[in-house]
């Protein structure tokens, strides 16, 4: 079956992204397809490369990156939600004249159309919110 996940909560403050990560691993383990993970609202903070966890705690953006690389996943951060919350790639940082960019390289900034397109391409769309 083809799945798309929507993550609407930020890591650390809320458990939802961690639940989503475990869910993603479980569905891939079972041989299902993960069409896209779309990070919306405060979920955009999952894409921050600046998240710094103590060594004995998990770092969710890095875990997403590792999972994406292992399974060649499409992990998309909503551009409209992200720029308002200070999650920028190099292109947007230049556009808004900010001094740095912080989107993890495994993630892509794109529009809500990616959520709609993914929903059309998937059998199940599961929201993880907080």
């Amino acid at each position: 079956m083809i799945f798309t996940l929507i993550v609407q909560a930020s890591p650390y403050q809320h458990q939802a992204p961690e639940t989503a990560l475990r869910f993603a691993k479980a569905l891939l383990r079972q041989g299902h397809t993960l069409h896209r993970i779309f990070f919306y609202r405060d979920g955009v903070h999952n894409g921050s490369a600046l998240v710094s966890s103590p060594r004995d705690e998990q770092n969710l953006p890095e875990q997403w990156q590792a999972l994406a690389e292992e399974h060649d996943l499409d992990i998309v951060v909503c551009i409209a939600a992200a720029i308002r919350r200070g999650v920028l790639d190099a292109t947007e940082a230049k556009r808004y004249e900010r001094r740095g960019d912080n989107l993890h390289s495994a993630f892509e900034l794109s529009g809500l159309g990616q959520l709609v397109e993914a929903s059309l391409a998937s059998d199940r769309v599961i929201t993880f919110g907080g």
Partner: protein
Amino acid sequence: MPYIEVQGVLHELDSDGYLVDAAAWTLDVAQAIATQESITLTPEHYEVLDVLRQFYQVYEHSPAMRPLCKAVSLALGPDKGKSIYLMQLFPGSPAKRAARIAGLPRPDNCL
């Protein structure tokens, strides 16, 4: 930041070519932006720009193509509300291009 010069006055544009200060918009500014896009404004352009600016006033955002067609259709008649007509006036991506010339922010919900 790019600028556009209109009658000796510089107006700031954002990196996508949209006017930064909406209040600075005049018909001359519109023509200057249109010239950059190789468009010569005619009365047919102006009436669409007018609809667009009214849309922004009422709904507080620049419309995507579908609501733009609907708004033009309601204001100027169904023939002008067709996307093919708007494509002729503002070739390429009419919602974005017309918003730029109308001095409005970039539409958020465009494809």
